[in-house]
């Protein structure tokens, strides 16, 4: 029984190690499959109670040859097949594991198998930062605890065969079948769980340096388009079908009034040559850092703003995103750059996930701009934001026709936006333009397109009626994850829109693209995927990227909590003081008692209350009030022993106070008392439990009640001895 359990748990441990390393997706799938099959075979064999070591179909020499072969394969592996030392060592470990699994005979074999699986597990920990590894840790901990304890038991028992019967009262022999029951597994599991909890505590408490140790470079950055310094019309279209995650944005103060008003702004373009957009204001500069260590993007925008925490997947672009318009930004980066149009760049494209927080000012058209009929713009604006490509006269005519109905600038902008929104059909399937001007093709021929066409058309139309405008690329709001309180932004949310300049309100966002009807995704499956995504985010946030900064933050928050509690105490204290003063007329000068004393006193009374409560509750005695009364955890056996004494007393046999229980039992034997054997047996158990602090097993309890029954029945037929005489 125990052997089967040891082999099973070893195989499970091996399986855990192999699966955790296999899930990193870096091993040769063929070798992984071989390993899995072999483990499955041994699992099957050991559960069918065929011990692998007795399953000796393959001779020893074959195994030796196998090991030599495996090492040769490893050499080849290092240089030609996988080309990586770590990977080839892992492949080797799988092969060695197979060998060990089929040749488990000595303790050494088991230990080696465990070490191999530990090696794989550790390797997996360096190779992945995925969520599954968290589960792997738990499973590995549990199975390793089982396997080690079972192995220890197995050899403990085979090294110490059950002792001869004379030692019965003392430390009896161990028996595997007796020990390994449900209780044993619960116990070992609680050990594993405790270890896990302690590990987590240590993980969160021990100071971290910089960002997470475990952070690993991802192999590929996400390929994006539309965020370079020059884009061709039609660049964004293809990625609109891609469901890959780009970033997650947590907004603590999100409310419904912000719905559909947030655009994740990326790159801004001001120059359109008829086919592609580019940025003529390429000059970048470093923003100032304020006294809180934040980068100030738009100087003079003031404090406040919408706070966002953004986790950006590794992208192939250096631009970073935020709700338009970012005013301040803080990130664990040495420097960032901004350009003249409010786009923010990191120094180089990151290979790791980037985490930063930003404050944004959500734009709003000011009242004065609403009634503005004509405006004069700064030279700078005129120079860079009114450029038009050659041959856009026809578009200009259309713009003037559409906007002629309104007098104000904002009215004209709205008219153009509405015109585009209502008269054109949204499609990702745009026919090639050939030699034609793409925007004219969109406006007058195809009358269908996607965001880039809408936005470009709107910019050209605005500029032709003299309104400064520019094109922005970025992302739509994305999907709101109400479980985690954040937006999930995917590639398919890529978007481009328009910003127009109004003298009183600065740049204002307009989006001429008609809203695409998105089917309601509140199905059970999507809810589940939201849950999983939210767990994954927390895993990344609090495990993978857990840093010193988070620790200081946690400490700060705790301190604030305590402070606020102290404030609460102060209030209670003040009211008590006032009350007391009212009663006693100020006889006692309690104002001298400091708040600290009150806090200490209340803490003291709390502890006192808790300990009294625990003391009253049966079964918990942190200290003993009345030593020697036996009122502690082994009181049960004392009660049983006293019961026996009472039963004997009824028959006139009295134990004198100065006799030890053993002396009493022996004296019963010398007066040939009928039940002296039973008394002796109970005394032995009593001694072992009462003074040896050994637990009273269920069998012993039932045996004792048997004995008590016997004593109660009294001696059979003839009580010829005057039983009291000797013991008196």
């Amino acid at each position, binding site marked *: 029984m125990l052997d089967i359990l040891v082999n099973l748990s070893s195989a499970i441990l091996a399986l855990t190690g192999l699966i955790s390393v296999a899930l990193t997706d870096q091993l040769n799938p063929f070798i992984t499959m071989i390993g899995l099959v072999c483990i499955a075979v041994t699992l099957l064999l050991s559960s069918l109670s065929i011990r692998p070591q007795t399953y000796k179909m393959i001779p020893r020499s074959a195994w030796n040859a196998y090991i030599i072969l495996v090492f040769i394969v490893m050499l080849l592996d290092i240089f030609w097949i996988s080309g990586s030392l770590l990977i080839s060592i892992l492949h080797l470990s799988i092969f060695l594991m197979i060998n060990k699994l089929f040749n488990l005979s000595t303790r050494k074999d088991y230990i080696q198998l465990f070490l191999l699986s530990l090696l794989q597990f550790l390797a997996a920990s360096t190779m992945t930062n995925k969520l599954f590894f968290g589960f792997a840790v738990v499973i590995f901990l549990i199975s390793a605890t089982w396997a080690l304890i079972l192995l220890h038991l197995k050899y403990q028992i085979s090294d110490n065969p059950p002792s001869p019967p004379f030692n019965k009262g003392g430390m009896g022999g161990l028996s595997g079948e007796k020990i390994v029951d449900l209780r044993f597994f619960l116990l070992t599991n609680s050990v594993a769980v405790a270890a896990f909890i302690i590990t987590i505590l240590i993980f969160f408490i021990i100071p971290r340096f910089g960002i997470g140790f475990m952070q690993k470079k991802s192999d590929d950055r996400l390929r994006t388009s539309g965020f370079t310094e020059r884009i061709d019309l039609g660049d964004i279209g293809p990625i609109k079908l891609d469901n890959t995650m780009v970033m997650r944005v947590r907004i603590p103060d999100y409310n419904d009034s912000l719905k559909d008003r947030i655009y994740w702004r990326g790159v801004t373009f001001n120059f359109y040559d008829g086919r592609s957009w580019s940025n003529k204001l390429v000059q970048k500069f470093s923003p100032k850092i304020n006294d809180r260590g934040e980068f100030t993007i738009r100087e003079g925008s003031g404090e406040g703003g919408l706070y966002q925490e953004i986790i950006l997947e590794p992208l192939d672009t250096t631009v970073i995103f935020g709700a338009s318009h970012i005013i301040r930004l803080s990130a664990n980066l040495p420097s960032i750059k901004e350009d003249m149009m409010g786009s923010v760049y990191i120094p180089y494209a990151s290979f790791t996930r980037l985490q930063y927080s930003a404050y944004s000012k959500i734009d709003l058209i000011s009242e004065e701009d609403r009634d503005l009929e004509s405006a004069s713009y700064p030279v700078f604006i005129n120079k860079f934001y009114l450029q038009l490509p050659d041959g856009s006269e026809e578009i200009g005519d259309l713009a003037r026709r559409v906007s002629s109905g309104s007098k104000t600038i904002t009215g004209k902008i709205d008219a153009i936006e509405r015109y585009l929104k209502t008269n054109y059909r949204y499609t990702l399937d745009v026919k090639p333009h050939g030699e034609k001007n793409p925007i004219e093709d969109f406006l007058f021929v195809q009358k269908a397109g996607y965001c880039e066409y809408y936005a470009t058309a709107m910019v050209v139309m605005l500029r032709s009626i003299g309104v400064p405008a520019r094109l922005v690329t970025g992302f739509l709001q994305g999907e709101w994850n109400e479980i985690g309180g954040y937006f999930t932004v995917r590639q398919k949310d890529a978007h481009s829109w328009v910003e127009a300049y109004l003298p009183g309100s600065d740049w204002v966002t307009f989006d001429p693209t008609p809203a695409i009807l998105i089917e309601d995704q509140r199905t059970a499956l999507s809810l589940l995927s939201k849950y999983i995504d939210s767990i994954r985010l927390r895993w990344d946030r609090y495990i993978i990227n857990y840093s010193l900064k988070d620790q200081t933050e946690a400490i700060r928050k705790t301190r604030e909590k305590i402070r606020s509690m102290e404030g609460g105490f102060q209030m209670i204290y003040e009211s008590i003081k006032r009350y007391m003063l009212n009663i006693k007329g100020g006889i006692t000068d309690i104002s001298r008692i400091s708040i600290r004393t009150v806090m200490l006193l209340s803490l003291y009374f709390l502890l006192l209350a808790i300990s009294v409560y625990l003391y009253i509750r049966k079964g918990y005695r942190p200290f003993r009030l009345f030593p020697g009364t036996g009122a502690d955890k082994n009181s049960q056996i004392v009660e049983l022993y*006293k019961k026996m004494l009472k039963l004997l007393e009824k028959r006139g046999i009295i134990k004198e106070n100065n006799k*030890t229980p053993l002396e009493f039992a022996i004296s019963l034997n010398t007066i040939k008392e009928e039940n002296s054997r039973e008394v002796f047996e109970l005394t032995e158990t009593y001694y072992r439990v009462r003074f040896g602090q050994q637990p009273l097993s269920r069998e012993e309890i039932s045996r004792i009640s048997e004995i008590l029954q016997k004593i109660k029945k009294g001696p059979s037929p003839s009580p010829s001895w005057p039983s009291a005489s000797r013991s008196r």
Partner: protein
Amino acid sequence: MKNMDKIVLLQKNIEQAIKGKAEVVKMVIVTLLARGHLLLEDIPGVGKTTLAHSLARSLNSTFKRIQFTSDLLPSDIIGVSVYNQQKNEFEFKKGPIFSSIILADEINRTSPKTQSSLLEAMNECQVSVDNETYRLPEPFMVIATQNPMEYHGTFPLPESQLDRFMMRLSLGYPAEEDEKQILLSQRRVLPAQEIFPVLSSQEILELQMETERVAVDESLIDYLLSIVSATRTSELLGLGVSPRGSIFLYKTAKALAFIEGRNYCLPDDIKRLAPFVFSHRVIINARLESFGKRGEDAEKIIEEIVEGLPVPI
């Protein structure tokens, strides 16, 4: 080899030389495991020296026998500083006390001055000579013998010296059957000389460490203390048991439990050991004191006191 086997082996080994005194042999081993010193008090010729000798020979450690005579000086025991002409300095020559087992034979025959030279060694396991302190080897055990009957030219041990012995034992006459065995086994070689070492010093130290792990329930400590305070208040005794006495009873109770194969003490252990550990520490009230057989009387009184006290349940 397991601990129990080692102890059984040691016991059997000593019993080869001392026949029919299993209880005394057990107490000797208790003292050894509790790191104490032993005082054997009995009439000549019952095997005091043989017992000490056979214990010493059973252990693979250094053994010295010091015959205490009236002209013995402290330096004869501890050692002496001798002037070394070549090195031009004093050199300490270690005395016989630098061994693991010391047999102090006829300890009451020497002057109190010499008896006291053992005090530091027995208590702190070290000796100080000429402002230098020397560690003694471990395990360290003094087995002293004395004859209670003969008082000519003896100096009875002072209380301070007596208190340092963990136990006082007496062998008593052997049973007839055992004495027959003794006579039959007489050969040219002394029985103690035929004994071979069975345990090393290291093993003794390990066993001593194990002994300390034996659990003692709180109620037993209360029981022990009730005995101690009873000796202090008893009308029969002029002087009660010192705190050192209660410490020694506590330690020996652990050792006895260990020897009997338990990892916890019982009230029986304490009850059984009290006379051996306490009898030489008490002084019988002067009004009651009978000349001569003081030791046995004290033992009886302790037994009476213990019998009068309730045992914890």
